[in-house]
């Protein structure tokens, strides 16, 4: 939990979140590759690194859009054409729905944070049709959304809402280990997919933690 955090987030937070996601994904590239090697095709770290690097490049190239929603949309479009793997349409749809949930909003309070996370999760589910327990990134996002919603309802700050989401996502990711994959490439392995963490759930935890860190840095 971040103490003394600002009461609302702005476009700067979105930009910082995307940059921090790029940094952590690049740092954890090999770890995500290794996770994906066990139950997939060993490219999740490479895919996300390529995608977020492209996003950062877009942010660096001249002025980024003014509103949080517009920046999220730019990132979504970039991910969808550069990630290459399943994570491309999934994170792309997540950010696009988050952008839509914000509309032209310029100031993001606790309820907007919970709302954009919910929209993102709903986008992932709409796109990939996975249910909880299918050993996918949904198993990180659904507890994250629930924790964020509870925190927002209880009057938490934006930083607290984000922290609740990230913690729940990381716990959800850890809990994918014993599961048998029922969606995505890992489902080809059937029962052999048990005993491994889901790479997308782990990267979701990293990205939500990046949102926390970006909010902390904004203070």
């Amino acid at each position: 939990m971040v103490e003394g955090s600002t009461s609302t987030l702005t476009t700067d937070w979105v930009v910082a979140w995307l940059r921090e996601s790029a940094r952590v994904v690049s740092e954890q590239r090999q770890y995500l590759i290794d996770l994906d090697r066990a139950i997939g095709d060993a490219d999740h770290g490479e895919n996300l690194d390529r995608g977020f690097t492209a996003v950062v490049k877009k942010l660096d190239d001249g002025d980024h859009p003014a509103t949080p929603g517009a920046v999220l949309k730019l990132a979504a479009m970039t991910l969808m054409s550069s990630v290459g793997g399943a994570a491309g349409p999934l994170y792309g749809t997540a950010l696009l729905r988050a952008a839509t949930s914000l509309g032209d909003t310029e100031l993001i309070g606790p309820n907007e944070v919970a709302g954009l996370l919910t929209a993102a999760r709903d986008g992932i589910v709409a796109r990939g049709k996975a249910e909880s327990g299918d050993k996918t990134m949904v198993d990180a996002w659904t507890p994250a959304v629930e924790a964020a919603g509870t925190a927002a309802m209880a009057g938490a700050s934006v930083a607290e809402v984000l922290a609740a989401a990230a913690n729940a996502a990381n716990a959800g990711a850890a809990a994918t280990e014993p599961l048998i994959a029922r969606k995505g490439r890992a489902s080809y392995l059937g029962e052999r997919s048990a005993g491994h963490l889901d790479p997308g759930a782990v990267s979701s935890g990293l990205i939500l933690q990046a949102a926390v860190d970006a909010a902390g840095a904004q203070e």
Partner: protein
Amino acid sequence: MNVGLVIVSHSSKIAEGVCDLAREMAADVPLVAAGGLEDDSGVPLIGTSLEKVLEATSTADQGAGVVLLTDLGSAVMTAEMALEFIDSDQRSRVRLARAALVEGAVAAAVEAQSGADVDAVTRAAEAAIVAL
């Protein structure tokens, strides 16, 4: 004016090869490959790209519509996303077939060559699984 096909594959070789194969029996059908993607330096990678699918869909549509065929699950997701981005007047004549890629593409191309509409071409693609 024939219905066009877009071949969405993780591999540019597969996408191009399927177009080559289908073209043999469907000389007048717009067959467009949307396979793989490239990294920053243009190195070909295995994967799919929304941009490629959108471009291919507009190239393949000569007014009679387009049927998209895909390989693995993430290609399906990319194609479904593309459907959401296509503007509404074109959207009504674009279909995503749930078909075996190679087998479905050949059957769909033959159907399209005969002048069939998008729904008939989609059905031909989807029936090719069963006929294997």
